[in-house]
């Protein structure tokens, strides 16, 4: 039996300290926590930075390093620093060293790095070692080499290698959400389907239970399946909450692809052991012929400047879309005229908050708001150009009249300056898998003794 303690769905989201203490008292074999995903968008991967505050990360990680010492078991974080790029891993390593020194406890740290050299990825693409996943974007060698960061998602094999170093703490770059939980049960011969299924159920912490924000859960893996137990007061796992978690952020509720195969839960059975714990058996692991890892990449997509105005005059609220369409056409023409640009050199869009900002042309509801926010979004190739176009848009959002005859209107600006530079933006560029001869081919492992 392998007992995995999961403090929460992500480091930075906090965890219930009392529940964590219960988990430590239950003598876990490993403490595993996720550090990120693509869910917050391409900027974090593009820049190679964390979305969570360093202060939150440090306080929560220090609590887990202390818990690890008390439990005398390894502590692993996957997708460190939100995106799992090398720079985010180094940021996490720096925090870890700082805490280790403050806690006065020597630790052995294994660092698994997942960043890829774009030139090597372009070579793999040219050599047909990459396969697009459904809905993958069009890819060229230039798209790949223009990525500021590309990461490969490690699976259980790479985490196992890191565990085999005997490290106290494993800081992993990008991994699948499940790999950090499944690795030890798999390495110790637990049921493979159960290991992956339990890992998927546990990867968001107590989201698979009632009282989902409480975070801490314990999963026991064995030869036939797994048992999940949330540890916070008032948190209960039921067959319904556990089986429903397969729906979460998953396009297919029965199949989950991982490096080296896929999980099939079609035949899984969920049994309540008591009011709190659920046992799951019958899950199936289907190994694949080739060993593949998924790639994620983000590349620069221009600089943005945003402006915002509020419409409260009932006539303008009622005619907001007409007003926006007129501004967009006139301002775009002015940008081309005054800056000598062509229409493809920039984008200028104004979205109406209170009318159709959520869905654009797909919106079906009739606007009813008494006020409307107009957010102007400018994207161009340089920061200076984006700001310049923002400044050309400014007078329109402030004073543009619906008709020539009326007195010049003025609309509400929230800020001065009205132009808010958002800096470099990024876009996701890859949704592909890379075939590997050896699971470690795309990853590196470093062991650090922090005295």
């Amino acid at each position: 039996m392998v007992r995995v303690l999961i403090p929460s769905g992500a480091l930075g989201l906090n965890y219930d300290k009392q529940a964590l203490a219960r988990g430590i008292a239950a003598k876990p074999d490993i403490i595993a926590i996720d550090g990120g995903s693509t869910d917050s968008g391409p900027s974090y991967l593009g820049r190679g930075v964390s979305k969570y505050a360093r202060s939150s990360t440090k306080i929560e990680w220090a609590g887990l390093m202390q818990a690890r010492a008390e439990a005398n078991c390894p502590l692993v974080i996957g997708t460190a620093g939100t995106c799992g790029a090398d720079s985010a891993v180094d940021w996490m390593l720096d925090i870890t060293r700082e805490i280790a020194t403050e806690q006065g406890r020597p630790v052995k740290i294994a660092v698994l790095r997942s960043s890829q050299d774009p030139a090597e990825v372009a070579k793999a693409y040219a050599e047909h070692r990459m396969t697009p996943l459904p809905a993958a974007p069009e890819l060229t060698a230039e798209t790949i080499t223009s990525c500021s960061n590309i990461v490969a998602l490690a699976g259980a094999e790479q985490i196992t290698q890191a565990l085999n170093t005997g490290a106290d703490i494993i800081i992993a770059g990008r991994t699948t959400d499940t790999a950090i939980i499944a690795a030890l049960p798999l390495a110790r011969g637990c049921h493979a389907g159960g290991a992956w299924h339990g890992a998927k159920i546990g990867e968001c912490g107590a989201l698979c239970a009632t009282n989902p924000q409480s975070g801490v859960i314990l999963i026991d893996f064995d030869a036939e399946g797994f048992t999940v137990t949330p540890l916070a007061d008032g948190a209960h796992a039921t067959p319904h909450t556990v089986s429903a978690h397969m729906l979460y952020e998953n396009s297919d509720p029965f199949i989950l692809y991982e490096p080296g195969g896929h999980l099939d839960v079609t035949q899984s059975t969920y049994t309540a052991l008591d009011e709190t714990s659920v046992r799951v058996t019958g899950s199936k692991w289907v190994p694949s012929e080739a060993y593949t890892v998924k790639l994620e990449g983000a590349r620069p997509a221009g600089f943005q400047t945003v402006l915002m105005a509020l419409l409260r005059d009932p006539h303008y609220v009622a005619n907001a879309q007409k007003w926006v369409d007129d501004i967009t056409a006139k301002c775009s023409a002015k940008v081309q005229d005054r800056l000598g640009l062509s229409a493809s050199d920039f984008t200028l869009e104004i979205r109406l908050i209170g009318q159709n900002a959520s869905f654009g042309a797909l919106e079906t509801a009739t606007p009813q708001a008494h006020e409307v926010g107009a957010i102007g979004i400018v994207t161009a190739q340089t920061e200076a150009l984006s700001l310049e176009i923002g400044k050309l848009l400014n007078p329109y959002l402030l004073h543009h009249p619906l008709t020539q005859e009326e007195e010049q209107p003025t609309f509400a600006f929230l800020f001065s300056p009205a132009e808010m530079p958002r800096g470099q933006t990024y876009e996701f560029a890859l949704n592909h898998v890379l075939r590997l001869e050896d699971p470690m081919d795309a990853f590196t492992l470093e062991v650090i003794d922090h005295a």
Partner: protein
Amino acid sequence: MPKLRDIAQKVRSKNAGPFWLTIDIFCGTPEAYGQITSALSDTQVAATFGTSAQNIKRFELPDLNVVKISLPRPTVQGSIQDRDMHGASWAALLGEITL
């Protein structure tokens, strides 16, 4: 004519990675599940999201009284055209479908 959200207990949407959107319709009761599975067509769902029915992946889970709909994201997450980084609001659009 009832809207989907009037019959279902809850409709939620979320990214399933940067390129896919997934929407879970928690029907709540076997009756609501039966009503929704028979009345909600893939064509209607596809039209709501401006795509074609062949892009709609639909899963029916009678044990949970859940219908799950997955489709390529109407805009890639975080692209210049995207309006909803986490895919949070799309559920509301589906919930307003008239059955």
